[in-house]
C-alpha cells in the first residue's frame, strides 16, 4: 500500500526502446506526454501478461508484442469484443424465450 507500490517509477531504458520499436512497427502516435507515459505503463504490464500466458500455455503458442499491446484488457474488450454475444446476454435471451414458450 505504500506510494512506491502504486508508482512503479521510471522505466528501464530497454523497455522504452522496446516501446519505441512497437510504436514504429504499428504506427502508434500519442497525443501528449501524459498519454505516452500511460500507454508505456500499459505496454509494460502487457509484456508481463504475455510472459505469464507463455508460461501457462499448454500448446505451442507464442505470446508477446502485438498491435494491441498498448491497450488495457477493458479497452481491448470494448474495441474488439462483441458485447451482444456475451454469456449474460445469451443467457437472458434464452431465459426470455423459455418464459415465452411457457406462457
Amino acid at each position: 500500500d505504500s506510494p512506491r507500490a502504486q508508482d512503479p517509477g521510471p522505466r528501464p531504458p530497454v523497455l522504452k526502446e522496446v516501446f519505441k520499436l512497437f510504436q514504429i512497427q504499428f504506427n502508434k502516435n500519442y497525443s501528449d506526454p501524459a498519454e505516452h507515459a500511460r500507454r508505456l505503463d500499459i505496454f509494460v504490464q502487457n509484456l508481463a501478461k504475455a510472459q505469464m500466458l507463455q508460461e501457462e500455455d499448454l500448446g505451442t503458442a507464442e505470446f508477446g508484442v502485438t498491435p494491441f499491446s498498448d491497450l488495457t484488457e477493458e479497452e481491448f474488450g470494448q474495441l474488439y469484443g462483441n458485447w451482444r454475444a456475451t454469456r449474460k446476454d445469451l443467457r437472458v435471451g434464452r431465459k426470455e424465450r423459455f418464459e415465452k414458450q411457457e406462457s
Partner: protein
Amino acid sequence: MPPSCDWRKAHNVLSPVKHQGKCNCCWAIAAAGNIEALWNIRFKQSVEVSVQELLDCGRCGDGCLGGYVWDAFITVLNYSGLASEKDYRFRGHAKTHRCLAPFYKKVAWIQDYIMLPRNEDAMAKYVATQGPITVLINPTLLQHYQKGIIKSTPSTCDPWLASHYILLVGFGKEEKATEKDLFQSNHPPLQSTPYWILKNSWGAHWGEKGYFRLHRGSDTCGITRFPLTACVGDPAEKQKVSCPP
C-alpha cells in the same frame, strides 16, 4: 474424416482477411465469410459478399455495436441474398437508416441456417465435407497472440465468456519432436498436437497472416459453444466436396 483439412489451400474459396477496425462487426464478417466460402465451394464461382449490407440492414440496429451470426443469416433471408463487396463496400460504420440492399444485385443467397452439434469431431466432419463454419470463442488470449497453437484450460480462457465470432476454415495436427524425444536414439516418437485453423477479422498483419490456431479436442476458449453455418444450395442435391489436406 480426413486427418487434415485446410480450405485456404482451395482456389478462390476464401476471400482476403478483413480488418474490422473500430467497428465490432466480427459477427457480420464471420457470417459473410461462411456464405461466400460455401457458395464458392458449391458453385465453383468466386464471390465476395457485402459485410456492410449486414451492418446497415440488420434488425438489431447498429451492427458496429456487435451482433449475432444468426441475425446476419436472418438479414440475408429477409433480403433474398447479399450484394457483392465490390458494389456495397465496407465503410466500418453502420448506417442503420440507410439500408441500400434493394439497390444492388444479389450475388449469393442462402436457404437456411443451422446450429451444428457442440462436438469437435462432428464440427471437423462438417468442415471437411461441407466447408467453413462460424464459431464463437473467448478472445482474451488473442490480445497477446503471435503464432502457434493455443491450448488453454477453463481457468486461463473461460469458455463461458465467448464473445468473438470467427470462421473455422480447417484443422490438422502439428508433429513436433520434444527435447526428450531428440535424445532418444532410434525413431523418436513425435508429439502430436491437433489444432483448428481460424480466420480472424483483425487484418492480415495480426497472428499467422490474419489466421490463428487453437488446440482441437479440449474445447479451448469455448470453441464448441455456438457452431453455426448457413445452408447454401438445394439440400436435396447434396454433393461431396473435398477439402485440401
